[in-house]
């Protein structure tokens, strides 16, 4: 078996037969590593994740070219729930908890991920509660009443319950306070280390994502524009200015007081 848990090669995705969102995107996720996928709004990051977990059809999207292999098998032939049961868990953008179910019922629903799994270990809520003690305290309340941070914990906990080999994380920092973002990312790093889960992490918050990742890709209008180790990306002038919010050369954090109305153009667009 190859050492990459996920290989995406040259995929193109078209929505409604008209709007092309991905234009020949390729990336790989090695076993047990965290790979960050960064990019501005509308670059196609979430679409990439949906293509991997085969959920495009729900939004009238279609994988029109290219190939995605998970664990050496083509994903196009698997139903979405089948992929989850094989160990590919997708934590969707906006958390998507089942609001009118309790926390525990959310986990019961997530338990479907391990039905038909060979190793015979049942769903272990304890594992989830160990990483997220807060969820244990609130296990009887409706998920819709949880705070944003707790909902994100629940969303990650649900994926964790399926003992995945690969987790797709779509903007886990969305709408959370900086302190909570730090907490969540610490736990994500722990899960990665202790459970040996590979992760494909989509983020707007490039700082935290690159601090965590073993490798990074930067995408722009449906293509990968740059990739490399986080140190290399962080050192790049364009990345520093456009994704990390640093002023181009000086390395100072950019202040909105000095912002100019014209910006340096991204080099890859010229």
């Amino acid at each position, binding site marked *: 078996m190859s050492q990459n848990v996920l290989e995406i090669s040259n995929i193109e995705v078209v929505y409604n037969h008209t709007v092309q969102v991905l234009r020949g995107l390729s990336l790989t996720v090695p076993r047990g590593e965290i790979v960050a996928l960064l990019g501005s709004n509308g670059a196609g990051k979430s679409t990439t994740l949906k293509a991997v977990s085969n*959920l495009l059809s729900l939004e*009238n999207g279609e994988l029109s070219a290219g190939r995605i292999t998970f664990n050496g098998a083509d994903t196009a032939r698997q139903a*979405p*729930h089948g992929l989850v049961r094989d160990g590919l868990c997708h934590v*969707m953008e906006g958390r998507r908890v*089942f609001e009118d*179910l309790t926390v525990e019922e959310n986990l019961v*629903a997530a338990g*479907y991920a*391990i039905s038909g799994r060979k190793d015979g270990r049942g769903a272990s809520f304890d594992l989830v509660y160990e990483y997220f003690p807060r969820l244990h305290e609130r296990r009887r309340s409706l998920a819709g009443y949880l705070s944003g941070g707790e909902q994100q914990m629940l969303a990650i906990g649900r994926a964790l319950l399926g003992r995945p080999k690969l987790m797709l994380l779509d903007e886990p920092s969305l709408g959370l306070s900086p302190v909570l973002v730090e907490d969540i990312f610490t736990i994500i790093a722990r899960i990665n280390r202790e459970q040996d889960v590979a992760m494909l992490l989509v983020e707007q918050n490039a700082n935290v994502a690159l601090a965590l990742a073993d490798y990074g890709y930067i995408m722009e209008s449906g293509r990968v524009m740059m990739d490399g180790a986080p140190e290399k990306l962080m050192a790049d002038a364009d990345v520093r200015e456009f994704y990390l919010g640093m002023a181009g050369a000086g390395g100072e954090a950019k202040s909105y007081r000095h912002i100019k109305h014209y910006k340096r153009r991204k080099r890859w667009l010229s």
Partner: protein
Amino acid sequence: MEWLFFFEVSLAGLGTGGLYALTAIAFVLIYKATRVINLAIGEMLMVGAYLFFGAAAGWALPWWLAIIAALIGGGILGIVLERGVIRPLLGENPISVFMVTIGLGSILVGMVELIWTANPRSLPNFFPTDPIFIGDAFLAPKTFWSFVVAAVVIALFLLLFRFWRGGVALRATASDQGAAYAMGINVPAVYSLAWCLAGVIAAGAGILLGSIGGISSEMGFFGLTVLVVVIVGGLDSVLGALLAGILIGWMEAMAGVYLGGEYEHLVTFILLMVVLLLRPYGLFGTREIERL
């Protein structure tokens, strides 16, 4: 004696209301899981009643075996409709699907008339026939027992919905289909399950209804009142379906006795209009606009 009479009529109304509530639950189940407005629910109910008739009178099975056969038949009917007709239409315009269910209703009526002719029949009686008295009030035994059965089935169903793993999957799918897929839930199987359960419930309601008033191929008209019930209750609310079912059953009985039989449906539809004017999403429905 005025109050006693009022009480008796109320009880009879609650009896019909129980059947409305039961059928409404079948409707809500389908709507919640698959977002299909199933106007063929009355005809599914009718087919269930005829299946019972066929098994009990045609094959001369004992009544309990005939009931089981009819319930299984209703479940199979639900699965066949979902797999054969509804699934290929998933993702289509809701109005197309809605129209297709109207067509399905006509087809079911036609099939029943081909097999059993259009003549009204009566079902073999299987309820105890001892008169029932609640306090001083007399209640027809059939009404009483059908209410009891409906109540028990509804209670069982609610428990199932709440504690069984498949029930959790149903509710999860109803609340967010994409996320349900991402949990490893087999969403198409959940659709089939919802239609199957709805078919079983509708068949059960059909048997109860038929045992009270006899069966005919026009029984599906009952589904129209059920549609009012679910709209009043809020399309996606089980609780709303229960309460609205009881309420409308009671109001119809009241109107039938105090105003005259021709006012029964008038009152129902006036209630529908009032509710739609004041709360367009129904008494307990999710507050979102459903374009139909």
